[in-house]
């Protein structure tokens, strides 16, 4: 509130030139908020193209996209829950659970790719449904409900194999050998590359990322459902009084998030070619960072699909560029943190000042 007071104080300055100056600085601020982050992104690309050997070029662009495909898809899921004023901490572990489940289905149970994919999607939707019901029906706060789900899944995914990673030829707890293999069709999900100008350029996960980003963007920005979800996020009570079925949309948001997380998990499994024991905490943190950075893109100051995709890309460009310049691993977390802090300053300080002055 003190922000408002300083703004009104400034507007009461005597003299026309003062008003004009204030208006001009407002316009510059507006531009900075709207395009600052995109400018930074372009600047980063130019910087690495000059200084990082081999950064400029279609192949580098593709693997930057590939490196963020999985976190990007997860981040789009987080964005959907952020839109309804919720939060999903379980996405990382849903993803790793889907990875384990797909490997278990194929390697241990000898199922086909299609059955495994359906099972993973069903699991993602089911976990999203449970999350939603916990939050809506039992009134457990979203952070706590999904935190609980996260721990539950981290444990659950290890029970069938007693904590071992799943690979063809592994020994099961009962002493038998699992001799199923990953279906080639399933592996293509993570490994196939489509020809696009260059031969074998575009990997499938990148297409998934772009496709899902467009779908989520269309859903949130252009459909009535999406706008109602934003309405719930900004004022749940008002939305409910206006006749929106708040509970149903909240559950829907968690189901979307669960399904997207399971897709990310399958892509991960197809890339690695095995079921890897992992808690998924790093996936969660990176995804949350990407969707929060997304707040700052185009000065949206709210969760949005375009921003999330750009946010994920931004982190990807930074990390890949730094790796190419031989920067050690600990600088990467530092850089991620710095980007996030800058983005949050963009969002909360600058945008708040802008809305305050209008």
């Amino acid at each position, binding site marked *: 509130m003190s922000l408002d007071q300083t703004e009104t104080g400034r507007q009461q300055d005597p003299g026309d030139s003062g008003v004009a100056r204030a208006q001009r600085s407002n316009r510059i601020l507006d531009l900075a908020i709207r395009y600052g982050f995109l400018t930074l992104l372009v600047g980063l690309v130019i910087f690495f193209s000059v200084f*990082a*050997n*081999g*950064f400029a*070029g279609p*192949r*580098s662009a593709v*693997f930057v996209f*590939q*490196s963020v495909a*999985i976190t990007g898809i997860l981040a789009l899921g987080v964005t959907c829950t952020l839109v309804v004023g919720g939060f999903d901490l379980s996405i990382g572990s849903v993803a*790793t659970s889907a*990875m384990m489940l797909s490997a278990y289905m194929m390697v241990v149970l000898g199922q086909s790719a299609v059955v495994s994919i359906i099972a993973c999607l069903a699991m993602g939707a089911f976990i999203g449904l449970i999350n939603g019901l916990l939050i809506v029906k039992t009134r457990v706060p979203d952070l706590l409900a999904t935190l609980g789900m996260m721990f539950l899944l981290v444990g659950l995914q290890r029970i069938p194999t*007693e*904590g*071992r*990673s799943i*690979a*063809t*030829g*592994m*020994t099961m707890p009962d002493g038998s*050998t699992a001799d199923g293999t990953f279906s080639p069709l399933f592996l293509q999900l993570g*490994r196939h590359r489509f020809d696009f100008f260059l031969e*074998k350029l575009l*990997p499938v996960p990148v297409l998934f990322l772009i496709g899902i980003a467009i779908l989520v963007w269309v859903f949130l920005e252009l459909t009535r459902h999406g706008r109602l979800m934003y309405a719930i996020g900004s004022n749940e009570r008002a939305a409910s009084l206006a006749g929106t079925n708040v509970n149903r949309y909240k559950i829907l948001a968690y189901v979307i998030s669960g399904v997207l997380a399971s897709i990310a998990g399958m892509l*991960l499994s197809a*890339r*690695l*070619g*095995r079921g*890897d*024991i*992992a*808690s*998924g*905490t*790093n*996936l969660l943190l990176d995804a949350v960072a990407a969707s929060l950075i997304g707040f700052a893109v185009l000065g949206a100051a709210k969760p949005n699909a375009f921003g999330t995709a750009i946010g994920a890309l931004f982190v990807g460009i930074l*990390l*890949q*560029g730094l*790796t*190419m*310049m*031989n920067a*050690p*691993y600990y600088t*990467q977390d530092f850089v991620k943190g710095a980007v996030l802090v800058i983005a949050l300053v963009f969002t909360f300080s600058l945008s708040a000042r802008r809305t305050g002055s209008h």
Partner: protein
Amino acid sequence: MKLLRRTTLALFAGLAASAAIGAGGLAHAADMPAPFDKPGDVKIALVRYLSTGDFFQAYLSGVEAQAKALGVDLRVLDSRQDAALQADMVDQAIALGVNGIIIQHGLTESMKEAAQRAVDAGIRVVAFDVNVENPKVPQIEQSDRDLARLALEQAVADNGESWKAGYVYVAGIAPLDRRDETWKMFKEKYPGIEEKAMFGTLDNPIANSVANQTRSVLQANPDIQVMFAPYDEFAKGVKIAVDEAGLTSDIKIYSADVSTADISAMREPDSAWAATAATNPAVVGEVSVRALAILLTGGEPGASVIVPPTLITQKMLNDNDIKNMEDLSAKLPQFAHADAAMTDWMPLPPR
């Protein structure tokens, strides 16, 4: 006469015990020195710092198998990477009245005093892969320096004495630091080896994160011929990236550690993963228990008990048609058993 009677008594006790518990590895209980003449009364605790992952799972199975062969009562306390909790768990084990403790990984700072408290309480302690700076606590080691040396010697044998290398390393992890010492020595010994890039991360899933990094490194340094990734999760990530970049036949990967998944990755047609050096984590687990058992009988296993590693090449795996860890133990006997911490009375787990 008296001696004979005691032996007979012990024999009977042993027979009774083996009859009661079943035909485990207890047939020789009578031959074992005190306190293993009554193995059921011996309690040992395994206090763990790291437990997630195939290596630690296999280590635990080795500890369990050897404890069962001895017939002792094993308690497993798992601190799940919480250093303070691990120290508390040592106190908990002291309170439980155990005879011996195996400390598995951990931080010197937090475990040094905890180990001392256990020793003061008259408990025998051995430590695996953590230095508790106590002369009364023998160190079990899987000789990381030898692991790295074996893999690098193979790299030199395959590629000659001068090549351009990519190196995957994260500082501050004790076994990786020890492997790093060997890498530095090798670079000095063979000036022709040029390290073009050093990278690495422990963000999990590690293989996926390392694959992303490797793509960048290969793009920036297309002339890399050899990747030294002295941890199998690193090597898996490097292999994914090498395959994705279409450089499978141009780059060779040398690593350390092995698992069933690693074996199938190494055996893929034209796999870039040329060799790995490994100790069998299950054997390391068995050796840990045996060293503790020797201590408990008043013997001396030595200040450090080293489990020697085995070199595993792609060719070995293909020639012997090895598909998983069980095949590996069956076809390479040096991998299935280490003669470290052995005595003539020591019962071994069934193979």
